[in-house]
């Protein structure tokens, strides 16, 4: 078997494989639902209903999509430059920690500065956390996949220590939980009376900004060049190391914002189960979006809908909600294959 590049892919070439990937994903889910004794039609029906069936469900989906947009953007930015940041989970928590430190009044900031400073601090925290692995990569050639993965474990233990020690809520009745944020440190509701906060709006703005950076700025051009062919980029005079470090700062900062948005917009306090793996799911989101920042928004909504829908389906139909995770993992694998097939023809010789 041999792969042959296609010079000018036809529209069908570009559309059919991704559609087949989605079809394959649903086939896998159908089989699994059958194995668990559920009726696939009602399972999918319940997922759709659970995600979009009511105003409450829809808002829940939007809220769940918010952190995924941030982590998805973080991954998309990094992967585009071939910086394999698998540590968005830790960077999210880093952002959440600094948000809580400032937001509970550690510095006594004036109210009007509180939110912007919390957001900046969260970005700073996330960016700093990715800087270490990025430096190890550029200076010593240590593979960043493994270091960022290991950092996830280290940082979650650090959060657990903080929640049982310095950041522990004295009124928390012994639970490992931080104190609640001051009211001025909370992101307001997007629409009064509805459970949807400004974090979602911020996420949309972030996606737009990343898109502008990618397409209109020298940094975007440099990041793409480094990602596509670092050797050629270096030869042409692009400061490759500096571009990788800038990419790391941007990516880590975006992941940090996810932590800020979750604590300040949704939860109001930090617990060690703040993120059910948003950092890892961000990888799926970014890949489904083909690393396109605006696509990330759509992919995050899709992924969030499956999670929210599967949760409510699980309660109604008794099929374990882990079916959502399986669907996303298989969508990821099928989609990377589909993207390949939009560009290459498989030859038998």
């Amino acid at each position, binding site marked *: 078997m041999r792969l042959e590049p296609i010079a000018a892919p036809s529209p069908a070439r570009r559309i059919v494989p991704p559609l087949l990937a989605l079809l394959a994903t649903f086939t896998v889910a159908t089989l699994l639902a059958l194995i668990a004794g559920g009726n696939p039609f009602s399972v999918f029906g319940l997922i759709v209903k659970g995600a979009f069936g009511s105003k409450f469900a829809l808002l829940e989906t939007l809220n769940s999509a918010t952190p995924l947009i941030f982590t998805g953007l973080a991954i998309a930015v990094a992967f585009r430059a071939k910086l394999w940041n698998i540590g968005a989970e830790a960077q999210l928590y880093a952002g959440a920690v600094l948000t809580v430190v400032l937001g509970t009044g550690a510095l006594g900031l004036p109210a009007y500065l509180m939110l912007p400073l919390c957001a900046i601090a969260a970005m700073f925290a996330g960016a700093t956390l990715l800087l270490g692995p990025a430096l190890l990569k550029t200076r010593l050639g240590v593979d960043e996949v493994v270091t960022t993965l290991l950092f996830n474990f280290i940082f979650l233990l650090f959060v657990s220590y903080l929640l049982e020690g310095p950041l522990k809520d004295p009124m928390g009745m012994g639970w490992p939980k931080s104190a609640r944020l001051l009211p001025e440190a909370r992101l307001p509701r997007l629409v009064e009376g509805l459970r949807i906060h400004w974090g979602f709006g911020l996420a949309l703005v972030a996606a737009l900004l990343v898109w502008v950076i990618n397409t*209109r*700025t*020298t940094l975007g051009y440099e990041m793409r*060049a480094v990602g*596509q062919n670092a050797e*050629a980029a270096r030869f*042409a*005079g692009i400061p490759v190391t500096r571009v990788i470090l800038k990419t790391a700062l941007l990516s880590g900062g975006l992941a940090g914002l996810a932590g800020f948005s979750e604590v300040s917009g949704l939860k109001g306090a930090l617990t060690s189960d703040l993120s059910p793996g948003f950092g890892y799911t961000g990888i799926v989101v970014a890949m489904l979006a083909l690393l396109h920042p605006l696509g990330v928004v759509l992919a995050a909504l899709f992924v969030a809908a499956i999670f929210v829908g599967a949760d409510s389906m699980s309660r109604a139909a008794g099929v374990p909600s882990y079916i959502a995770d399986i669907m996303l993992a298989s969508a990821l694998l099928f989609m990377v294959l589909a993207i390949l097939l939009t560009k290459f023809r498989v030859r038998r*010789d």
Partner: protein
Amino acid sequence: MNNTTKAQVVLRLQGITKRFGPVTANEGVSFDLHRGEVIALLGENGAGKTTLMNILFGQYTADEGTVELFGQTLPPGAPRAALDAGVGMVHQHFTLADNLTVWENIVLGVDPLTAPRLKPAQAKARIRALSDQFHLKVDANAKVGRLTVGERQRVEILKALYRDAKILILDEPTAVLTPQEAEALFATLREAIATGLSVIFISHKLHEVMAISHRVVVLRHGKLAAERATNQTNREDLAALMVGSEVSAPSIETGAPGASLLSLRRVTTPDQGAAPGLKSLNLELAAGQIIGLAGVSGNGQAALSDLLSGLITPTSGEMEMNGTAVQRWTPRTAIAKGIARIPEDRHKTGTIADFDLTENAILETYASRFSRRGWMNWAQARAFTKDLIKTYDVRCPGPDIRIRLLSGGNMQKLILGRVLEEAPQIILANQPVRGLDIGAVNYVHGALAKARDRGAAVLLISEDLDEIMQLSDVIHVISEGRLSPGFGRGTMRAEDLGAWMAGHGFDAESPNAT
């Protein structure tokens, strides 16, 4: 050769046709190879030589036609069958694993994978016997990564002989050898055909073809253009057959040297893996001259090229441009100081395959010319690229297509345009015509000569001695990181340069003086 017609036919190609999408690489190619015969397969780059050999070797499946070995039709697309039938191939790019030893590379795949164990002692004894018989001296226990290029080629030939090859295919085998090493290879081949081996010798160097072969098969545009007995043809005849219509190479006259633009004094750079760095090297690049750098690959050309490209800095010694010492040295400063760089590998280093022509055209100048305060000016970049395409005759649908879709020649023209538009003082051309067809070769050579004539200094690095001798006003030879004195145009014969390439004449005590 009249007597070979009576000899046994060992290989018969019949009507081989192979298409890659819209491109036809081979069309209806047929010829026979006899026992003890050397056939030279002659053709330009892109004429379909390598594709044909890959079909013969079973790497590709032919769309039409058959391959017969010793009277048996070869099943299509089975490399194993060709190997087992006694075909051995020495690829142009060696297929050796650097971190394995010589004997491991040779025995790889010979015993079935289900065999319980390797037999190193037995294998080494056999390798020693073969290398004695065919004068292929090599240490069986050495790691391949530590061998010279010539030694690696011997390992490749030993690989084939170890498998009892009856037919040996050599793809451009002399491209990486000194003239003396090439002569030794020919001696080995004569030895081999005396024992009954048959050889297909792929080349585009006419004098070699005349020296070694019995018959010449010429391919042009994938078709068999001619078949000649070597003793009934001559170089001019073959050249015309290879190219089709007569194409005249640009006549390049000697340039008059001007002021010194760049000088290296006792410059030393670190070794790069097995390839040596520069060893206390002196070099002067004067305006209005083409300075040719001859040498066997892996003798410090990469270090010199990387140094002038700004990728590395000297560990000791001085580097002066226009009379002032160079301080900070990066690719960007090299470009800013007027060095145009044409890299050795245009696919990996020169361009970004999935970027469009515009994005590739501004790769070196986006920061200085096509952006303001971090914002790209794409309209300007696109207009610039359109001009470039017109001025440098880049054949393409437009500035928005991915560069991977361009042919090697058009890719090289875009790179040429990209650097020549900056009116450079110095041009570093590293293997600028490798893999190009004659039309593109002449274009590139013409462009380099034109730049020289308007006062630029051109450093031409090439492993092709003919190219160096044709173009250069001054020739230096590089060997193990040391540089020979400069030889004026026409003062040296190829054999004399070959002696320098093999490392003779260098005085370890005093570095070259120019």
